[in-house]
């Protein structure tokens, strides 16, 4: 971003719930990479002041808390059981890779570089691919 562009965007105000939450995320190649399910804020280290928006949280780990109640707890439990790491949190997309956002959020990196893709890939390779018939894509089926 150039200095001029930076000046143009400085001071912009948004309502985070209305203008960011639930927006679809598109990667640098235009592929969908999940939704904005929650936002992470970090308190500045050096001085007291308002927290800074540091990351988008996406996927079941981010959504569970928003849903809350029994359903939220169930989603979190399924996510924890399926996730390869012992204490999985939500997939985290640093806000620094966000290029722009309006009715969707554009990030400057490919989906394969995002945490959300790692979990999806793990589920695809370890679970989905072991279901009988998983190797048949809908396109192949329609040709038969």
């Amino acid at each position: 971003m150039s200095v001029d562009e930076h000046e143009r965007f400085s001071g912009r105000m948004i309502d985070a719930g209305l203008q960011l939450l639930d927006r679809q995320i598109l990667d640098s190649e235009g592929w969908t990479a999940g939704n904005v399910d929650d936002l992470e804020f970090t308190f500045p280290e050096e001085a007291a002041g308002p927290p800074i928006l540091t990351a988008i949280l996406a996927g079941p780990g981010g959504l569970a808390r928003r849903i809350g109640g029994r359903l939220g707890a169930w989603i979190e439990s399924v996510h924890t059981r399926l996730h390869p790491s012992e204490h999985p949190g939500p997939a985290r997309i640093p806000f620094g890779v966000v290029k722009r956002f309006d009715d969707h959020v554009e990030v400057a990196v490919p989906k394969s570089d995002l945490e959300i893709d790692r979990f999806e890939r793990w589920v695809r390779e370890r679970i989905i691919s072991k279901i009988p018939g998983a190797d048949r894509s809908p396109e192949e089926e329609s040709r038969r």
Partner: protein
Amino acid sequence: MRLTDLLGATVTGNDGHDAGVVVDVRLVQDGPILGEIGAAYRIHGLVIGRHTAGAHMGFERRNVRGPWMLKKLFSLIQGPERYAEWDAIASIEEHRIRLNVGGGALAKAEPPR
């Protein structure tokens, strides 16, 4: 801290009276340079309404367009929204935010500029 730690939290004034619940969190882009997006977004303040019901659709807000009937309905549900700047926050607890001012002293929430 997550956005969902703030949304829906009850806001209590220093007079002990509840001022409402957090229906949205307003951010301003005036922080340090973060990356592609430029200046980081920091929390500017909290939009406080009566309920969270339907608040994520924003029909009750003046800057959101929508069918007049829904706007009217959600305005009645939400009541007049108030705004608390970050400096007015004394503490953030689980499901509750305490202010260092009385709820009655809060300004009416205006659309983000």
